[in-house]
């Protein structure tokens, strides 16, 4: 026999064994159903979990994207080691000026502070707005927050303490419905201001708190003057840098500049906090890591249960089919051929289980998304993981029963 014909022989035998396995899968339909169900339920949970993890990841990137990879957020006070009685009013206008003038790469520095829960009125329509934010020119730009219509604040607006505002999507809807709010005058408490811009709907809450879309933004000067706030400190500030290269270096620059200005000695903790996209991502991936471990464990258990179901039913099946196995061996099937047939049966069933599981899982995931319980993303990962784990389960849990079948001695199982 030549090498080529030996290979052809092998291929032909493999095809024949595969066909025998398919016939047996059909012949033992009840066993097949249980294995497919057992594995399918495991794969379904795996599918939901992979989709949920992918969804969480997409969400994380959305949040980071909204935050802006080229932005640094500075908050007064140290959120990492919040000492009791620590002051939050540590950022001053002098700091802002210093940053504007001497932080390399920073092209936009916007300080902010806010008043909360003020009544806002337009004609007879009265609402409560959770956050009135004071900011300087470039507010929309510094938050990567496009305007649906109108314009951003300019330096003159700030200098003059102009009575104008940008309005968030929620109050705009509440006060004006589908009409354009541009040019209209609303009363914030008792202060009349003209709307010059409407911010687009953002949706994504940047980590708890009140929804960002409920805001109304005033020039910082207007807010401090009209609402009698002190004029030295503000709460937070956004810095935009022109290049995201060396972000860590730029953050360090900012930190040491602020530390120097606040007169902090070496070893003293920061009295302000810096937040960057990287940091948010780190936090989110930590969160995702926890999710991954928990859900991964759950999925593993679910899939393993499917595997045990398979192993058990296959042991039973091998017992039930002793005569068939012994006969095939007597008629010249090698041990390998018997092993291959049972493994093929197992893998065919787990693959069918994977198919069922993916269908079930995707349906379930869609449902969870509709109910707004989970953020879901289907990717090739779902398919790959499901298929791979199905094959792995088939081989892993099918191997022992298949080996047992292959090791059967014909004369012991063929009596008489």
């Amino acid at each position: 026999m030549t090498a080529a014909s030996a290979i052809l022989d092998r291929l032909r035998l493999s095809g024949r064994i595969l066909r025998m396995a398919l016939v047996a899968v059909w012949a033992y339909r009840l066993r097949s159903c249980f294995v497919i169900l057992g594995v399918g339920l495991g794969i379904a949970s795996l599918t939901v979990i992979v989709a949920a993890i992918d969804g969480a990841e997409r969400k994380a990137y959305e949040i980071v994207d909204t935050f802006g990879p080229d932005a640094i957020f500075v908050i007064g006070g140290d959120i990492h080691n919040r000492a009791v009685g620590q002051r939050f009013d540590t950022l001053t206008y002098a700091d802002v000026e210093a940053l504007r003038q001497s932080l390399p790469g920073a092209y936009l520095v916007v300080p902010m502070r806010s008043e909360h829960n003020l009544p806002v009125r337009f004609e007879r329509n009265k609402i409560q707005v959770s956050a009135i934010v004071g900011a300087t020119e470039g507010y929309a730009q510094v938050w990567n927050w496009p305007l649906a219509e109108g314009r951003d604040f300019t330096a003159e607006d700030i200098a003059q303490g102009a009575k104008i505002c940008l309005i968030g999507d929620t109050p705009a809807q509440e006060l004006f419905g589908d009409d354009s709010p541009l040019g209209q005058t609303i009363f914030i408490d008792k202060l009349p201001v003209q709307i010059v811009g409407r911010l687009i709907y953002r949706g994504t809450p940047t980590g708890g708190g009140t929804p960002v879309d409920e805001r109304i933004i005033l020039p910082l000067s207007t807010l401090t003057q009209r609402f009698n706030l002190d004029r030295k400190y503000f709460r937070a500030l956004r810095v935009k840098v022109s290049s995201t290269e060396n972000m860590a270096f730029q953050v360090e620059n900012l930190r040491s500049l602020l530390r120097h200005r606040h007169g902090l000695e070496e070893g003293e903790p920061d009295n302000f906090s810096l937040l960057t996209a990287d940091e948010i991502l780190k936090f989110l991936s930590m969160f995702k890591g926890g999710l991954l471990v928990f859900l991964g464990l759950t999925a593993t258990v679910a899939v393993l249960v499917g595997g045990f179901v398979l192993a058990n039913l296959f042991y039973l099946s091998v017992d039930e089919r002793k005569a068939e196995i012994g006969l095939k061996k007597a008629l010249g099937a090698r041990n390998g051929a018997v092993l291959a047939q049972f493994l093929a049966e197992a893998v065919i069933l787990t693959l069918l289980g994977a198919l069922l599981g993916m269908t079930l899982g995707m349906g379930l995931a869609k449902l969870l998304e509709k109910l707004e319980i989970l953020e879901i993303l289907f990717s090739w990962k779902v398919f790959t993981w499901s298929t791979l784990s199905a094959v792995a389960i088939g081989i892993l849990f099918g191997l022992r029963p298949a080996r047992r079948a292959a090791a059967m001695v014909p004369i012991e199982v063929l009596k008489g």
Partner: protein
Amino acid sequence: MTAGDTVIRLADIGKSFSQGGAPVEVLKGISLDIAVGEFIALLGTSGSGKSTLMHILGLLDRPSAGSYLLNGQDVAQLADDHLSELRNRMIGFIFQSFYLIPYVSARENVMLPGLYGHTAGRRLRARAEELLALVGLADRMDFKPSQLSGGQQQRVAIARALVNDPQVLLADEPTGQLDSKTSVEILELLSDINRQGRTVILVTHDQQTAAYAKRRIVLDDGRIRNS
């Protein structure tokens, strides 16, 4: 190979099992030549070693001692895979309980040994159908075993034993589960197959069955009894 050549030569075959630590000798020096085209009855009561000898003849078991030449090749201590291949090619098995695969048709049952061999699918199928016609089941090829009578099932098994054109047919109590009329038909069929030149070894405990064979070998307590 032509009639008269030796197809099987057993020389001083011994077989012992250990039972509860003590070795039990089941075969005690069996020497036997079987020529091509013979029809042999292997007779013996239970416990005579008849089954063990049949297992060794059928390459389902290895002797503990002695040599077994099958077609001139010493097969006494070959590895499992090699024995599988030889069984597939050289020996056709017929069992008392037929041992058909319940969930496939008669045709596919007959094809089974061929699936592990080297015959192309189409030829194998044609051969199976030809053999089913030969055993009188041309109109039952698509029947499942459960749809066939005992005699018909044994005919399927005989067709299956012939599908790889083996040198030796090994029939282990082939009529043990059949009524007397059907038994006669099956034994006639085996005689026909033998007349066409194939070596047939018939293992039985029944004198009447053995009467169909041309030569009788009686096993008694692990030895061939001279008769």
